[in-house]
């Protein structure tokens, strides 16, 4: 015991570190270049949002939850609104349901592209990083043209959506998807076979199926370890009830598998978006709101990073009595301990990035 402590030394990473999109402090015990221990210090992005939510009325909380995190920023208000709708038994019109899925899948594509792009950046593959980010701009343009902002769509409101999309908007979306599709196929090929990517990502940061199950990880992290979980299929909500969601699974459990899951999910999302546009129902986009009664309700959705849960408790007033949400990353952090065990120091940022950690989501 003493011998190892003599040999090891501590390397602090963060909280302000260039490879970290967000502040998190890691104290890493190193033995040469091998990781022997990791200690996380969180809380740098803890904004006390659950307390803030109790001081905002139900409308303000739509936007507040959207600001939990900007990468999954559509999933939060979407799920929050669903929790209010579950509570008050509001029937969201079919067109609004479908428009919500459109917004959700657009965000999923952007989020996944960002993550696999950043992965290339972390392994120093800057041309590939720029290439992926440039492809992501197709989706950024779609968001900006359809919704008016590149990150926060403001698409959802209680009882429906804030916007309606007309034929030109759908045409713009389909055109973007047509341009993106071959690029995703090409990216999939690169991430699967490029020697540099393979050399850096295969068999790195492995999470076995058993560990994934024991830690109850969610989203692409679970699916990259061979667990076929997806709320869109397991407990379908909104328009997903009528959609055929392809649950993408890879068996490797390593950094590469998780990246491949995300890239293949982009392809699945493209199919979903096309299906939505094809089957877009006509009609209103907003339900008439009843009084919000006292009670409790839960809503779940599959955010880009996995299962997202909202628990809402009201007493019949304008402000919630308790609004609690559990984000997908919250479940995945613990898995890092297993993935980083005996990893090389140069793989730390890579492995951390592979769970697509959303710190602002986790800490609220």
């Amino acid at each position: 015991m003493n011998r190892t402590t003599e040999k090891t030394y501590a390397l602090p990473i963060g909280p302000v570190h260039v490879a970290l999109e967000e502040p998190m402090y890691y104290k890493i015990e190193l033995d040469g270049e091998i990781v022997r221990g990791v200690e996380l210090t969180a809380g740098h992005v803890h904004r006390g949002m659950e307390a803030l939510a109790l001081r905002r009325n139900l409308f303000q909380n739509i936007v507040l939850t959207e600001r939990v995190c900007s990468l999954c920023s559509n999933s939060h208000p979407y799920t929050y609104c669903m929790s209010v709708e579950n509570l008050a038994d509001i029937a969201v019109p079919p067109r609004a349901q479908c428009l919500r899925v459109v917004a959700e899948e657009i965000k999923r594509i952007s989020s996944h592209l960002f993550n696999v792009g950043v992965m290339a950046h972390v392994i120093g593959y800057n041309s590939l990083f720029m290439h992926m980010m440039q492809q992501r701009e197709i989706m950024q343009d779609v968001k900006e043209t359809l919704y008016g902002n590149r990150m926060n769509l403001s698409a959802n409101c209680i009882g429906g959506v804030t916007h309606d999309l007309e034929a030109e908007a759908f045409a713009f979306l389909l055109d973007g998807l047509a341009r993106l599709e071959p690029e995703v196929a090409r990216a999939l090929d690169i991430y699967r076979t490029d020697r540099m990517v393979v050399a850096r990502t295969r068999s790195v940061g492995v999470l076995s199926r058993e560990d994934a199950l024991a830690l109850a990880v969610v989203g692409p992290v679970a699916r990259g370890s061979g667990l076929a979980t997806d709320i869109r299929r397991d407990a379908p909500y909104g328009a997903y009830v009528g959609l055929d969601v392809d649950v993408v699974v890879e068996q490797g459990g390593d950094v590469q598998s998780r990246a491949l899951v995300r890239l293949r999910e982009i392809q699945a999302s493209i199919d979903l978006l096309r299906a939505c546009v094809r089957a877009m129902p006509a009609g209103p986009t907003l339900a008439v709101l009843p009084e919000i009664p006292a009670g409790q309700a839960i809503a779940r959705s599959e955010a880009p990073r996995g299962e997202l849960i909202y628990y809402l408790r009201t007493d019949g007033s304008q402000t919630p009595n308790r609004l609690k949400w559990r984000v997908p990353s919250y479940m995945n952090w613990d898995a890092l301990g297993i993935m980083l065990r005996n990893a090389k120091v140069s793989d730390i940022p890579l492995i951390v990035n592979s769970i697509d950690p959303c710190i602002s989501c986790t800490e609220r």
Partner: protein
Amino acid sequence: MELTLSALLHMLLFPGGVFALGAGLLLKGVDRRVQARLQRRVGPPLLQPFLDLAKLAAKETLVPETANRTAFLAAPLIGLTGMAVAAALIPVPGAYSGMPEMGDMLVLFYLLPLPAIALMVGGSASSSPFGALGFSREMGLMLAYEIPLLAVLLAVAMKAGAAVGAGPALSLTVVVGHQMAAGQFGFSPAMLPALAAYLLFLPGTLGVPPFDVPEAESEIVEGPLLEYSGPALGFFHLASALKTMVVLGLGVDMFFPTPLPGGALVNVCWFLAKCLALMLVSLTVARAATGRFRPDQAFTFFLKYPAPLALASLALAWMGF
């Protein structure tokens, strides 16, 4: 006395010092611009490296409280002076025949690691854990790429010497002269493995992807350079520009030295053009098309590919091919 004065001028003005600096920075500017084009970008102005230096000159140099001040500030100068001397040893065929009396390829071999050593000194003087990690990485990588370099130098010397009928000709002036008479090594089948090894050595010694492990920005925050700022950082940039020029020039002298008919000015340009070509192949394009190796991967890479290649050429030269 005359000798030292002219040697000094060679170190400060041409081909070392001012000339090599200007050329090196210009090459870096071209490198960045070509790199940008490969990535569908416009890229910075050609003279951006000069602008960066002007900016660094206008900033303050902060010394970390825990650092060894003298070592911290002296470190960048080690690399810079070492490279200025090295640059004076590189003949520019048709314009400058080198200074065989000052040193041969072995001297260059000892001078070339100086910027890396400067980085290590600076990194450890800064007392930052990232600097320390960068130190150990630079050290390991250096060991790995020095082996193929030595083999390449010896192969070239052997081949040039064999033709003269003596032992290995370590003088670059002789190497250049021999090739001008008997054909360039770059077109000799026996020396092609050595050329390949040298092309792989270049990104290693210059610390560019896929071998930028000591300065891996996203892993250890630029490693040894982390704590440097202002003019001190500028000196590292200058040393790096000089080194780029030295290693590219050395490559040209070893493999493609033949000058053009014409004056010194024509041949200076011709020399620079060849440096540029070498840079585009081994640095710019290769950098754009790869990521970064893990330190252990980089280490094994050098022992697995460039070292055997260079040794093959050495053996062939030994046997008289």
